[in-house]
């Protein structure tokens, strides 16, 4: 009886895991924060979210067809859904529909597929799209609104929402500045941070998310919950989130201690903007972050420091997307210099000298 064609070498047992399962778990972790924010910003946000995710899937399918790759199998890995989801979370909730569609094209057709599709892109697709949109359409990308929870008195109904998202009819007098934007503007008018901070939403509102901002920027607590869930499921490790937040917090705290009038405190930097979303969901993207734990710490710390630098000194109030993209570019080099030490060898790759077996 010879029945076995031998094609594969060992191992002959495999963990039950797949790319699809990983992506699905990440989506699951995003649901609480997303649901809460969609509730906060109402129908226009729901429409924009749907358009953005849908556009990403359609563009992905198109690219796969053009590249001659299996469409159904690859779409099933949910990576396009995740990209669209993260992109939607980084957009102003009441932005017009074409922002979402253009973003999808930037993310999937420009940042992902030209490099060869999933696993090959150097830069985080959602962040490429966000940055491209921000630079191309600065006005549309910086119109923030205060929360208008669904079914509340001032919330737009579905019809109003369609007008806002698809008709471009942004109602006047709803726009509000994000906290980061507010202190930046005030500072440029000569009002010290210590004063303008008093007008920013208090810490509790910032944490819960009852404030102006993009979908994913608000509600730090629910983002944190999702991130902790991912850690518990061992999808991500603590290295990147902690080092990103550590970097932001430390820079903020140190400089605030030096000059409180000029620099916002570390805790403010931590809970404002997209720090949590960036630390747990954006910088941790497998494809565009280093593979070794040491590399991940360096990468995260770099992101954190850059976020603070951009927020504090650059023209834009928020710097997560820029910081992540800049660090993405360094990943190959970080990878190269943070390879683990091989068993029985020195860091340089020479065999350990005898008599030094306890490195």
């Amino acid at each position, binding site marked *: *009886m*010879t*029945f*076995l064609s*031998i094609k*594969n*070498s*060992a*191992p*002959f*047992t*495999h*963990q*039950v*895991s*797949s*790319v699809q*399962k*990983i992506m699905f778990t990440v989506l699951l972790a995003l649901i609480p924060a997303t649901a809460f924010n969609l509730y906060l910003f109402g129908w226009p946000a729901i429409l924009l979210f749907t358009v953005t995710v849908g556009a990403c899937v359609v563009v992905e399918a198109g690219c796969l067809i053009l590249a001659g790759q299996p469409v159904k*199998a690859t779409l099933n*890995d949910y*990576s396009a859904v995740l990209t669209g989801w993260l992109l939607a979370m980084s957009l102003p909730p009441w932005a017009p529909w074409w922002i979402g569609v253009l973003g999808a094209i930037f993310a999937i057709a420009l940042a992902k597929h030209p490099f060869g*599709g*999933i*696993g*090959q892109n150097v830069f985080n697709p959602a962040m490429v799209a966000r940055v491209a949109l921000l630079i191309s359409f600065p006005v549309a990308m910086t119109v923030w609104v205060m929360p208008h929870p669904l079914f509340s008195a001032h919330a737009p109904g579905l019809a109003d929402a369609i007008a806002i998202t698809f008709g471009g009819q942004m109602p006047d007098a709803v726009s509000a500045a994000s906290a980061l934007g507010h202190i930046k503007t005030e500072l440029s008018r000569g009002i010290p941070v210590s004063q303008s901070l008093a007008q920013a939403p208090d810490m509790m509102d910032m944490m819960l998310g009852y404030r102006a901002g993009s979908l994913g920027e608000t509600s730090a607590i629910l983002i944190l919950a999702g991130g902790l869930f991912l850690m518990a499921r061992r999808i991500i*490790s603590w290295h990147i989130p902690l080092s990103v937040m550590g970097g932001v917090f430390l820079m903020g705290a140190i400089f605030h201690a030096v000059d409180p009038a000029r620099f916002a405190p570390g805790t403010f930097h931590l809970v404002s903007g997209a720090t949590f979303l960036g630390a747990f969901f954006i910088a941790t993207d*497998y*494809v565009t*972050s*280093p*593979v*070794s*734990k040491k590399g*991940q710490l360096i990468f995260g710390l770099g992101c954190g420091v850059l976020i603070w630098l951009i927020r504090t000194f650059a023209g834009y109030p928020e710097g997560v997307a820029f910081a992540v993209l800049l660090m993405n570019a360094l990943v190959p080099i970080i*990878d190269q210099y943070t*390879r*683990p*030490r*091989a*068993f*029985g*060898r020195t860091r340089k*790759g020479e*065999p*350990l*000298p*005898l008599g030094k*077996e*306890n*490195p």
Partner: protein
Amino acid sequence: MKLFPIRGGIHPDYRKELTSEKAIVALPMPVALYIPLQQHIGAPAEVLVNEGDPVKKGQMIARSGGTVSAPQHAPTSGRIKAITAIAAPHPSGLAQTTIILEPDGKDEWGELPEPIADPFTADTHTINERVAASGIVGMGGAAFPSAIKLNLGTQKKLEILLLNGAECEPYLTCDDRVMREYADEIIDGARIMAHALGVPRVVIAIEQNKPQAIDAMTRAASTFSEVEVVGVPVQYPMGSERHLVQAITGRETPAKKLTADIGVVVHNVATARAVHHAVRFGRPLISRVVTVSGNAVREPNNIEVPIGARVADLIAFCGGFAVEPESLINGGPLMGQPLPGLDVPVIKGMSGILALTAAEINQQPASACIRCGNCVTICPCGLVPVEMAAFIRKDNFKVAAQLGVMDCVSCGSCSWLCPSHIPLVHYFNYAKGMINAQDRERRKIEQTRILAEAHTLRVEKAAADKAATLAAKKAQAAAAAAAKEKDETPA
């Protein structure tokens, strides 16, 4: 005892409960035994018998074929039916010379060497000679001739004999059962080996998922102060020689060196038992315990098998297949070798026969790497599987070698956990084979060049000699002619 952490590793589904409570049973003698000449690392054995010869149980039928080699013995009495090439228990399915023995059913022992009366006063040479003559090889899977490893005490400064009872591979329970049922024999064998090596200490390392084995071994070792039984954490690949040494001593064996260079010699527990049999009773290694397991087998079991029984005999003894297996494996599922069929024989290094279903193997089609980095985190050797595989895919073996592919022990951890199901270890096995083949080719070219140069020199020298002789002859002739002329010149 203080233990030391090892890097990375995985916690696979162990599935040892299939056979862990099955006591060892003897396989009924099959109708024919197929004893390959090469069951070990090194040179094949040399045949000592002819077709038709009657042989007794324990009789040497093939002698050691070199300094690194091992003899083969008849596992039972009978007649040599043939000496021919049959498929080896190897993924290539290539044939190798095999002695086919037809048992006569009497199972009569031949004349065995005298037991060594008091091994603890015998010298190293006497014990090693006995171990070598008994055909004992490492029974954990690598099948390296044990006598050579026992000789290391004469060359290196050794401190510890480490007995490997980790058995970290899923499914396998043969060492577990041997430790539970023959603890005294193992301890005695280990003490004899320690004496031969000249080491003062024996440490027996057993993974903590085998509490009964730890108990049995601790009890058997209690009267000997130099023997210590240690439970080590359940962490694959704890049973890898270098990693176990690190866990026990904290010492990291340098690349390209042996564990003996840092004072530790590692042997498998079943090998120690074989040494006990050889030294105390003069019995050679003619059988071993094999775990037959996997969901495709009807009744998984631990079986004491005469060397040379066919895999088919074992499967039949276990009630045959419950379902058609997807793969048939020699060894554990993580590091084992696939077998080409059921007609191959059991050899000395075969610890398990696994008949696995597709569901157990869970091999999915590979998808693109998403750089999750898990392979880097868990690699027990500190390598970067994701990068190595990327270079090997492009057949760039030079960079792969620089990244350390030759340091990979093929433990299988990275392939086991890759979410994209990329056959990483297969890439590394391919690269190792290609790099070795290229090395052989380079050596051959070098040899050819040296020979060709010698040839050219010789031809040139021959031509020069010929020319010289010719010239000399000419000169002689000329001189002779001149002399003659002179002679003829009238005075």
